[in-house]
Each structure stands twice: as structure tokens, then as C-alpha cells.
């Protein structure tokens, strides 16, 4: 169990809002300050490691650019909670070690409220004690998050055996 502060966003948050095209030539650390700036200019500067984003349906729609997930990892986000995600963004997030939780009631979470995450049971507890259940996540994807992403998993696999 761990505690996390919520940032609330609307539905249809797209990849171009997460990683704006004008900065796509730059490395992830230079895109990160512009993450979500067109909808919440204070987000990138205000987010603290361990915070979570709770949003409406269709989070991450649009481009295949994985910088859209990489900037959230770079900013230290613990998880994104939404009723639904773009399938392509979903794959990218887990490949980069970012946990996505599919929770139908994600939008009942409030801006700034502290929530707790139970990763064993995939359950969210809101500040007022409500329990939000999340759709199951395949074990191999949870392993990917625990490893910090696919690159780390491949690195481990390719290490010479002692």
C-alpha cells in the first residue's frame, strides 16, 4: 500500500497534449516541462514523484510517440488511472514501466486528494475510504512495471550468465 496525490484531467487527453509536436525533436527531459501544458500549464512544474493522474476515458489517444508516456515516467508519476486508454498508449506505458489502471470510476477521484494503491489487489482507496476496483492487468505487464520497463528486462535477459 502506498499513498499518492491526485491530478485530475478530463477525457480524451491525447499524445500531442502529453508530448507536443513542437518539442518532439528534443530529448524526453526537454519535452517533459511541456507535458500537458496546453490544458494545465502548472502540471509539469508542480507534479511530485509518486503523484498519480486520474482522467476521463480515452487517455493517450493519437500518435505512437512513446514520449507521451516517457514524459510521465520522467516526471515521476506513479500511475495513470482512467476508465479507458488508447491501446497503443497502453502498450507504450507498460513498455516504459508506467502503470496504467483501468478504473470505471476514475473520474470520481478529486483534484489533490490523497489516495492509496494496493497493487496486489489492484484496488484504489479514495481519501474518504471508497474502494475503486481496477480491471485485471496481465502478470507479465505488472512484471514489466516492476522491472522498470522492457529495456531493463531485455538487459537482464542478455546479461551473460555467471
Amino acid at each position: 500500500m502506498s499513498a499518492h496525490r491526485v491530478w485530475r484531467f478530463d477525457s480524451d487527453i491525447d499524445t500531442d497534449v502529453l508530448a507536443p509536436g513542437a518539442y518532439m525533436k528534443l530529448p524526453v527531459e526537454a519535452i517533459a516541462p511541456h507535458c500537458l501544458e496546453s490544458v494545465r500549464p502548472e502540471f509539469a512544474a508542480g507534479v511530485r514523484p509518486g503523484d498519480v493522474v486520474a482522467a476521463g476515458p480515452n487517455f493517450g489517444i493519437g500518435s505512437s510517440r512513446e514520449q507521451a508516456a516517457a514524459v510521465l515516467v520522467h516526471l515521476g508519476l506513479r500511475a495513470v488511472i482512467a476508465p479507458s486508454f488508447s491501446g497503443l498508449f497502453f502498450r507504450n506505458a507498460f513498455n516504459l514501466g508506467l502503470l496504467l489502471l483501468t478504473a470505471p470510476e476514475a473520474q470520481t477521484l478529486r483534484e489533490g486528494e490523497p489516495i492509496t494503491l494496493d497493487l496486489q489487489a489492484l484496488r484504489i482507496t479514495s481519501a474518504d475510504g471508497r474502494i475503486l476496483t481496477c480491471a485485471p492487468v496481465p502478470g507479465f505487464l505488472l512484471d514489466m512495471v516492476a522491472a522498470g520497463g522492457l529495456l531493463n528486462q531485455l538487459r537482464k535477459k542478455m546479461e551473460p550468465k555467471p
Partner: protein
Amino acid sequence: MTPTAPPPRTLAQKLIARAAGKQRVAVGEIVNCKVDLAMFHDSSGPRRLKPMLDALGATIWDKSKVVLVMDHYVPEQDDDARRIVRIARDWAREQQLPHVYDSIGICHVVLPQKGHIRPGMFCVGGDSHSPTGGAFGAYMFGIGSTEMLGVMVTGELWVRVPQTLRMHWRNRLCAGLSAKDMALHMIARFGMNGADYQAVEFCGSAVQALSMAERMTLSNMSAEMGAQAGLIAPDQTTLDWLASCGGADAPTGQWHSDDGAESIEHAFDAAALAPQVAAPHSPANTRSVQDYAGVRVDVAYIGACTGAKLDDLRAAAQVLRGRRAAAGVRLLVAPASAQDQQAAQDEGVLQVLLDAGAELLSTGCGACAGYGGVMPAGANVVSTTARNFQGRMGPASTQVYLASPYTVAASALRGSISDPREVLA
């Protein structure tokens, strides 16, 4: 005793089963698939893959199955673009990649024009519009760079066997309408994520009547519905394309959904469809053209993999022949590939567009990729591209309307969003 017939399967199930080396796969099952082809471009590819491959000390599993297309940052506009494209060129040389296409067009168009996509294949692309390959009866979808790294190292990746949503289009499109109108209409009906990462299959007489280029537009924009793949069963039209680009004989017989295969069917009447326009800032924000008729147009953009292939340029020329764009409208044309541009020139189509006042831009992703911020602030743009997110093709104040090449041309002609059927009549 007669042997029991095997249960019917969808095209998606057949394609995934083959790649997974299984007799059959069930919807919802997660399987590992062997990749027949992996495509990436200058933005998603070398600049991100090279450092990760170097860090792992890994090599590419099979270079003959890799295609690199330089299309996003070419021609190079600044030092950052020059750096990114140089990384791609240097790495292609260093790796001795056998299939590299530099500045000859947009990846989703170049790939089939060079005969790389054939029915039955399982392919991935480092770009969200990779479902374009589905127009050829291949299972193709977009992945990010880290996942592409996994493919480069192992030649495999996982997939959850999707349900199939069959989009059945009966009758035929009327004159002045195109696959773009069909795509926008479906996106409006189902929403940007309505396909929930399942497979979409386009079928019916209106789909069968489409050229390969038009089918590619449909498959491409299945991404805008949130589908993983956008499939079309191959037929004689497919075989004719493959023959024309030197593709080997491709058996098409088995690559279709069996009768009775479990799927969700949605019916559409192509003959009843009016030209469609997606207003800012979402492709799902689509209505019939008359709902937006009269909106002032500052820029008319004919470009992108879904809007500037030869068939699209012909459509625009049909509207603009012998006419000129309205005063005050910038008409921009960025052909989807060098091959399309050459063909348009040979046919006289390009001259029609130039005579109408068009400015010819380089082939490539251009303004559509949204990396340049090309469109002016506050401008109303009507565009043949696939995506009109806020801030994508220009500053946040730029208003982008998506439409077919017929509608974009008609709107350029009149200086406001217009129904092309009125102009063609």
C-alpha cells in the same frame, strides 16, 4: 461419417494464428507472434533505437525484415532535424540495412508502393497509422520505440487476439465522395477510441469498389477509431496492385473471414453518405459538410498519407480543373510520395493543381506530422490529413477541419467550406 468442419474464424484470427504458429487462437487470448516486417521512420526509428541497441550490445534479429523510411523530418528545416536525419542515414549505412527509402514519400505509402506488404503477413510499424497495411490483408499495427527495440532484438511481440468489428458498406459512394468521407463518418459514429483496440474489418460492395489507395485511407484511419488493425480481405484489386509493384505472387484464398465467424457487424449505406467534415479539434467531431458550409478558409492543405496519394490528387484536380482557388486562400499540395507526384505529373493532374494556384510542397509528412508548426496562428485550415488535434499542425489557435480531397478542393475554390457535389454538378 463426414468430418466436422472446423469452426469459422475471422481474418484477424487467421493472421494472428499464422504468426503465432498455432492452428487457432481465441478472442482474448494473449499470444506471441513472429514479426514478418518491422517498419520505422526517422522520428521513431534510429534516433531512439540506436542508443538502446548500443546499451544492450544487441544486434537486429533479421535486417531483411526491417524497412526504414525517412519522411518526418525531411526536407530538414533546422539543425535539430538535420541531426535526427543524419543519425538515421549514418545508422542505416553502419547497419547496412537493405531497405531504406530516403525522402521519397510517406512510410505508409512507400511501403506498399515498394511491394513490402502482402496478404497474410504480420507487421509492425513505428507509427500510429501503421494499420494502413491492413488494406492488403496483412495484420499491421503501430508500436512505440521501446517495443520496436524488443522486436529488433527478438523478432517477436505479444498480442491479445482481438474481437472483429465488421464495417459493412453496401451500395456505392456517390460522385464527389471518397474513402476519407467513410472514415470520418465511422470515427464520428464510434468515437476516437470506440473500437477499443479491437480489429476492424471493412467489407461490402462499396469497399470492394475502392482502389487500393482508397482502401489504404480506410485502414489508416482505423487508428483514429482506436482499432489495433484495420483489415480488408484481399481480392483481384489487391493482386493487381501487387503485380504492378513487382510483388511476388501472393495467395489470397484463405485471407478472409469465414462465413459465420463471430464478429460484431455494423451496417452503412455508402450511397446515402454526404461529404463529411471534422471540425476542430478531433476527427470524431464530424458532421455532414452542410453543417459547416460557409466557414471561411485561409489555407487548403492537400497532403498526408490519407490525402495526397495519386487518387486524392486526381480527386482534387477533378474539382479544380480550369478553375482557380479563391483570392486569399493558400492552396498547398504535398504529394504523399515521389511516385504519386510523378504519376500526377505524367497525367497532367499536377498541372491542373498548379494552374489552380497550388503551391507544391515536398513529399513527406510535412504539416501533418505536426513537428513543424507550419500553419499560421488563428488560421482556418481545411485539410486532407488524418488528425486535427489542437496544436498539432500549428499553434493552439489554428483551426483545422478535416475533409476529403474533393471537399478541400471545393473549399479552396470558394474560399469557404463547400460541398464538392455543387462544384462538380
